[in-house]
């Protein structure tokens, strides 16, 4: 820790930070476009100019490292004037089409204009017309008029992805961002480019013109789609009567966790959750017919004692696994308990892990075997937990007159084979602790409120438990 | 002619007259208030596309009242609740029997008095009857089983009890002046002249009594500025729980009372049917019987006796209407008194003044 002075007030900050980061840490805002926490400083936008004692000129705070005894002024007269001058120039060619810009509401340019600018456009010049909807990739759209050339996107592909796919072409005011020969970006992380853009230059197609950002509410959770457990934000419409016809999951944004995912997530995490949402099931089905809970309890009581195999989903939280094991393994004394999850997929060295399930580590820790190690034939089976992709290896093992129970929030593809399907809350509707591939535990809270009749996995286990005890 | 039949006819005619007057009194109230407040007033009710400034409005109102749901709240004294408006209306309307509408007319050989009955204690009778109407109000307020209604009723009672005193005391001066309590004779007395040229109208003989009387009487009718029993901005009043035609009856009573008040004021203070200097059947010095105007300066204008009767009846109506409009004017001019102000006015101002009036009157009578 070293001591620095910002605006004549003394603070002690960590070593190795830039002035911008240090100021942010102590709660002083310095406007910036190009600086990003996980990208190298570039000093391009010149918005973060501050006055530093001893320096002849104003210095960019994003590139100046803190030193012992540094004295910084972020709101001095010179700084405010310089900031306004720079902001003026940023707006000189900007189309200011906020009404149709999806970034409006979370746009740095807009924010800083409100905060530091607020002048009429002083330049009597014609604004340049440029390409407004260039497809940068399958999910990104580039608007060159709005671009302020902070180069965050270029630097992201260069520094984080390592495969430089975006470049600056031309020079001076003619410069523009493009891919090589205008080809589309192919990357598993392209969604981040839209998120990282401080203005509305690069926007996400899935969010394009859908809803204004200020109607959205951020809810924090983790991404369940691989074992890394990236922190994400789910954005959902705020309760307003005229927003009724929107889905509850509008978009996924990356959370900020320097130890796990910095502030980036892969495209799978960004777009797949919305797909999964659509396969949600809310009906209890017994032999292809709807049933009510009174009936279900009878059926459960009848069949639960005859179970011989339990398959636990690796989408269950730690607490649910603990309770399931205590009910099935300790109380019912069932030996055949296996875990199951989505099939392994590709892996890279940025974020994506091979294991596509959030909580396999904990199951292995609890000595639950993999589903591949089933050797005997199964007669009565209970599948427990999120289950939206079929696993072929189990089908061969299932005997003729077996009873298959399934407790899952999703409708499986071969519903015909399942005798009893109970709906439960899905990942986003429940909270819990999750253990990622490196053994790091993370806690989530429910993102959405489940429908009233839907029970959590925990409640269903409690019902089973109480049924058994009554007997 | 059969006396009973005659009375019956008189009652029917009077009742019809009263009802029509009352109906149009509602319209008059709305119109007068509108005109005072630079508005138009009710003018929308139409029959065959003719609205004619709202002359059909009272019928529309009446129809509306009749066809509205007559809701009787639970926990009320059903009988009393239904009966109360009728009591008020009955006693209010009954006052009319003693009012003389004109000089007795001669049809054929019969001399018909233009009043139902002509008792010799008429003056006392009318005040006795009008005081009876308070029973309906307090019963209505009480039987509604609502504290606000009851409060309204109680207020009405206390108000009437207070002002009855001033009212009667102010009358005493008149009684001292007038030769009889018989209303026809009172009117006749008022048609005589004082010092040969001033008609002996009550207002001229007893101006202070008139002021006290009119204030007290307005308080008796429970209309603004003395509408504390109703107080629509505070407690809504004794008829809070009433709806439909029962409420209509209460509302009508309100107007009937006002009409009665204008009739009484006309009779007692404005010479009733009397037109100054117009005489019928006056025996002149030469012995002939003369009908027509005899002005103080000696000029004579002969009019047939039938026309005299008609003029007198019309004069009475006009006087009544003028007084009625004046009462409306009062009602739309002043704000409501506070209860303590009401009591103060009644007990501290009006009653002493009335007593003072009696004393002065007695002294003057003694001197003259």
């Amino acid at each position, binding site marked *: 820790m070293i001591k620095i002075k910002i605006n004549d007030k003394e603070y002690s900050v960590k070593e190795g930070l830039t002035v911008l980061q240090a100021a942010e840490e102590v709660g002083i805002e310095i406007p910036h476009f190009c600086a990003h926490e996980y990208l190298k400083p570039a000093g391009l936008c010149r918005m973060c100019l501050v006055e530093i004692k001893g320096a002849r000129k104003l210095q960019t705070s994003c590139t100046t490292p803190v030193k012992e005894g540094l004295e910084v002024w972020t709101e001095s007269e010179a700084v405010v004037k310089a900031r306004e001058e720079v902001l003026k120039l940023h707006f000189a060619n900007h189309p200011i089409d*906020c*009404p*149709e810009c999806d970034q*409006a509401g979370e746009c740095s340019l807009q924010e800083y204009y409100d905060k530091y600018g607020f002048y009429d456009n002083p330049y009597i010049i014609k604004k340049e017309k440029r390409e*407004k*909807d260039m497809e940068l990739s399958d999910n990104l759209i580039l608007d060159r008029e709005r671009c302020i050339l902070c180069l965050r996107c270029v630097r992201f592909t260069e520094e984080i992805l390592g495969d430089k796919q975006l470049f600056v072409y031309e020079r001076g005011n003619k410069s523009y961002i493009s891919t090589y020969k205008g080809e589309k970006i192919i990357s598993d992380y392209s969604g981040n480019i839209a998120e990282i853009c401080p203005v509305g230059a690069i926007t996400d197609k899935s969010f*394009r*013109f859908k809803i*204004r950002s*200020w*109607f959205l509410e951020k809810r924090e959770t983790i991404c369940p789609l691989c074992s890394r457990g990236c922190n994400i934000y789910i954005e959902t419409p705020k309760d*307003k*009567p*005229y927003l009724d016809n929107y889905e509850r999951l509008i978009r996924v944004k990356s959370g900020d966790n320097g130890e796990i995912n910095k502030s980036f997530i892969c495209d799978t995490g960004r777009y797949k959750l919305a797909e999964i949402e659509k396969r949600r099931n809310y009906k209890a089905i017994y032999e292809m017919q709807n049933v009510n809970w009174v009936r279900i309890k009878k059926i459960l009581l009848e069949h639960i004692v005859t179970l011989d195999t339990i398959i636990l989903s690796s989408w269950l939280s730690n607490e649910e696994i603990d309770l399931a094991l205590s009910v099935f393994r300790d109380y019912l004394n069932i030996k055949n308990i296996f875990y199951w999850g989505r099939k392994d997929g590709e892996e890279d060295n940025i974020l994506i892990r091979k294991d596509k399930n959030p909580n396999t580590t904990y199951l292995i820790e609890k000595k639950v075997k993999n589903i591949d190690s089933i050797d005997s034939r199964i007669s009565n089976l209970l599948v427990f937990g999120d289950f939206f992709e079929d696993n072929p290896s189990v089908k061969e093992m299932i005997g003729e007159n077996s009873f298959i129970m399934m407790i899952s929030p999703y409708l499986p593809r071969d519903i015909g084979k399942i005798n009893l399907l109970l709906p439960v809350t899905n990942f986003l509707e429940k909270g819990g602790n999750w253990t990622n591939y490196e053994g790091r535990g993370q806690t989530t809270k429910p993102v959405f409120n489940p429908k009233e009749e839907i029970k959590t996995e925990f409640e269903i286990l409690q019902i089973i438990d109480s049924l058994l005890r009554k007997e | 002619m059969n006396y009973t039949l005659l009375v019956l006819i008189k009652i029917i005619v009077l009742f019809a007259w009263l009802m029509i007057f009352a109906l149009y009194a509602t319209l008059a109230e709305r119109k*007068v208030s*509108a*005109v*005072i*407040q*630079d*508005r*138009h007033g009710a003018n929308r009710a139409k029959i065959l596309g003719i609205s004619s*400034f709202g002359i059909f409005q009272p019928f529309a109102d009446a129809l509306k009242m009749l066809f509205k749901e007559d809701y009787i709240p639970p926990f009320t004294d059903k009988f009393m609740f239904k009966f109360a408006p009728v009591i008020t209306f009955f006693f209010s309307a009954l006052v009319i029997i003693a009012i003389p509408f004109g000089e007795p007319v001669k049809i054929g050989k019969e001399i018909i008095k233009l009043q139902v009955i002509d008792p010799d204690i008429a003056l006392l009778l009318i005040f006795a009857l009008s005081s009876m109407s308070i029973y309906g109000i307090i019963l209505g307020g009480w039987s509604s089983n609502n504290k606000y209604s009851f409060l309204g009723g109680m207020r009405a009672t206390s108000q009437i009890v207070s002002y009855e005193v001033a009212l009667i005391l102010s009358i005493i001066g008149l009684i001292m002046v007038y030769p009889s309590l018989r209303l026809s004779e009172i009117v006749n007395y008022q048609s005589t002249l004082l010092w040969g040229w001033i008609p002996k109208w009550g207002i001229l003989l007893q101006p202070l009594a008139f002021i006290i009387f009119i204030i007290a009487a307005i308080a008796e009718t429970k209309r603004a500025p003395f509408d504390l029993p109703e107080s629509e901005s505070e407690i809504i009043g004794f008829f809070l729980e009433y709806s439909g035609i029962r409420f209509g009856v209460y509302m009508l009573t309100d107007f009937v009372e006002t009409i009665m008040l204008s009739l009484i004021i006309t009779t007692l203070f404005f010479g009733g049917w009397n037109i100054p200097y117009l005489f019928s059947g006056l025996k002149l010095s030469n012995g002939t019987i003369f009908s027509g105007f005899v002005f103080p300066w000696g000029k004579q204008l002969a009019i047939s006796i039938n026309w005299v009767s008609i003029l007198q009846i019309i004069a009475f109506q006009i006087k009544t209407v003028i007084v009625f*409009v004046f009462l409306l*004017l*009062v009602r*739309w*001019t*002043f704000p409501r008194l506070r209860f303590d102000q009401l009591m103060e*006015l009644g007990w501290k*101002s009006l009653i002493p003044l009335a007593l003072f009036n009696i004393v002065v009157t007695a002294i003057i009578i003694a001197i003259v």
Partner: protein
Amino acid sequence: MKGFLYFFETIKGLLVTGKHLIVNFFFHTINYIFRIKTKRRGSVTTQYPEEKREIPPRYRTKHRMMFNEEGTPRCVGCMLCVTVCPSDCIFVKAEEIEGKKIATEFIIHVNRCAFCGYCVEVCPEDAIRMDSGKLDFVSDSQKNLSLNLLFKGKK
């Protein structure tokens, strides 16, 4: 003494109202019965359906949508009106048409509208205005009071 003053003030009041009564009654009579037009009418009210008041140019009346020369609505669906509306009575839906954002649905629930005019003031494209001059829109159903402003024909 106080009461005495009161007495004269009450007389004064009676004179004021009485003056109104008589003067207005006179003008009512000559205006409405004898049909003589005078400058003074004896009333400040207007008889609404028959005679209509002149609406000032900035008076806020029924909303209308502005259209471009090509016939597309000016509204780009920025939803600022939705945001600013205190009565929550505006519903907008925008879609991409030929690369541009254009409103495809613009509904105002007039029976919930407070006619505050914020939507007009906030509109960056000058797409919505409240200067149609229409004040009398009544209906016996909620449905008819949901104005679809993108509907161009007469309703």
